[in-house]
């Protein structure tokens, strides 16, 4: 898009000036008006809803209809639901604590597997795919365009007791009658890995693709072999993409309930998302669902902010 040089000149002349310093004040109003619809939308449909969750969490229960009664004045918030939820988690014989530990455990294993599987693939495509890079990239990106439900459905088909996985296992002499969908922890973890690994790979690919090739050459020129160049140069430079990539898989995994329901559907593998979703659907427990999702939010706020900061920083560096 060739712009006349005269247009470029105008910008340079003003570079030293303070931004907006010599513009008439109505310009500022123009930009405020431009941003206003989005701001009002976010205020009404993002900030207010979260305040509403607080109001439900601090509200009362209508014992007749068993529906929650929100209380909007923070001074009148009751801590009854919070206490109930606290007992659910930390009380004697609590039902939620084992589920929380299970959630942490599943998510940790799934995220680690995502990195172990995703990193070599992203590394290969970013660095060695050569002329076939576009082909590999299309194949890596394809899962983004395939609905999550379709991808889970595909595994449900394969994992049926008379499905292909068992047939293949049986044909090579292994037990071919495993009830994969009957509440197995490994099925759920593999489902999580399968579901979220494309996001990680794309983040890793973008990060690895940005690494300056001359740094690697410098490593080679200084006598490092391929392995040692990788360990001393590439790996340290990919720390940030690994971290953000893990976050982008871990955050949705912690709120995932559908993978679990589809691939197991038993209480024995329930995660925190299943508890929240179940409470939301059960009259009388919706307040506890509100508290539980707020507690989850409190735990996740720090990693979320870290993620936002990190991506904003790498975007600034890229531009």
């Amino acid at each position, binding site marked *: 898009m060739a712009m006349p040089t005269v247009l470029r000149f105008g910008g340079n002349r003003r570079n030293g000036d303070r931004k907006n310093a010599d513009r008439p004040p109505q310009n500022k109003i123009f930009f405020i008006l431009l941003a206003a619809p989005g*701001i009002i939308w976010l205020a009404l449909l993002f*900030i207010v809803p979260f305040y509403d969750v607080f109001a439900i969490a601090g509200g009362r229960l209508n014992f007749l209809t068993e529906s929650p009664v929100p209380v909007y004045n923070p001074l009148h918030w009751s801590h009854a639901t919070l206490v109930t939820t606290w007992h659910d988690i930390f009380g004697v014989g609590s039902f939620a604590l084992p589920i929380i530990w299970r959630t942490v455990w599943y998510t940790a294993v799934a995220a680690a597997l995502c990195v172990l599987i995703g990193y070599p693939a992203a590394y290969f495509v970013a660095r060695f795919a050569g002329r076939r890079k576009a082909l590999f990239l299309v194949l890596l990106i394809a899962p983004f365009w395939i609905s999550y439900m*379709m991808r889970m*459905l595909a595994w449900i088909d394969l994992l049926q007791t008379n499905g292909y996985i068992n047939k293949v296992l049986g044909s090579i002499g292994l037990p071919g009658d495993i009830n994969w969908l009957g509440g197995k922890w490994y099925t759920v973890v593999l489902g999580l890995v399968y579901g979220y690994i494309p996001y990680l790979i*794309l983040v890793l690919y973008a990060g690895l693709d940005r690494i300056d090739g001359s740094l690697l050459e410098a490593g080679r020129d200084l006598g490092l072999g391929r392995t040692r160049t990788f360990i001393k140069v590439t790996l340290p430079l990919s720390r940030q993409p690994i971290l953000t990539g893990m976050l982008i898989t871990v955050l949705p995994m912690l*709120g995932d309930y559908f993978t679990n329901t589809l691939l197991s559907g038993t209480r024995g593998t329930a995660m925190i998302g299943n508890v929240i979703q179940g409470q939301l659907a059960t009259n009388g427990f919706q307040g506890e669902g509100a508290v539980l999702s707020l507690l989850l939010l409190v735990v996740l706020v720090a990693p979320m902010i870290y993620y936002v900061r990190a991506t904003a920083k790498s975007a600034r560096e890229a531009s």
Partner: protein
Amino acid sequence: MTSTATTTAAPATSAAPAKAGLPWPRRNPWRHPWFLEGFTWLYLIWSLVPIALAVLFSFNNGKSQSVWQGFSWRWYFTDPVNSVAHNSVLQLAILQTVKLSAYTTLIAVPLGVTFALGIHRWRTRTSASFNFVMLLSFVIPELIFGVAMFFVFTSLFRPVGLGTLAETLALVTWNVSWPAIIVQARLATIGDSYSEAAADLGCTPFQTMRRVMLPLLFPAIFASAILIFSSVIDDFVIVDLLSNSAANTPMSVYIYSQQHGGNGGPALNALGTIMLLMSFIIAILGYVGYRAMTRGERGSTTDTLTTIAGA
């Protein structure tokens, strides 16, 4: 590409001679990493073959989703009760998905683009905090967001209630950050010189927007529209929490509710295949369109591919 200087696109093994004379490494440092390539192919097979099989089973001439009984169009057309062509619930689900995608794209794109344009020039503490809120809405787990939406539409905004309106409002909020982020990134790349030049030449802010900024931003706006449309097709959690009848249940929720706890039958595979086809058409349109719009600019096939995937 014979020069050993390019490492980003690794040359083929034959292109670079082994560096003889150096004691280390003894092996050709530019050899092709066959192990890594094999691993990548294995990953791709694991990632894509199950889906190909699921598509195949949508053509199964039997009720099983796991035992092949011959090819047929049964679950698309010929079955008088359960095929997509004859089951009105399946059609409602398809229609609802298309409706939600269209509504959400039509509302979220202008909202996000104007937000980005405004925030880019109106830099105060207020605007910065709203920009931060926008980014938070991008990373918050969908379940937590969905819970907030469920509560607000059943209590404070009770007149809205559950259903298509609630789904649309929530999906717009959930997706508005796409255009906001992509357009802001593009604005940062373009820089302020164009709009300042236009202002110097006597454009009013509105004219600058219409005649200079919007044409420059059009590829970014287009890419965000494609991303929103496809992400609404794929969306599950929000619509699952906010739908309350067959008339406002989109495809993803329908598949979920039919499949969990049993065998939903190949009609679900047919529905999933239709969903997949819709997404692929959108993706191809996005790719071709984005390529056409950014023709003559620096950038490559791979850049386009990552852009329409939201990276």
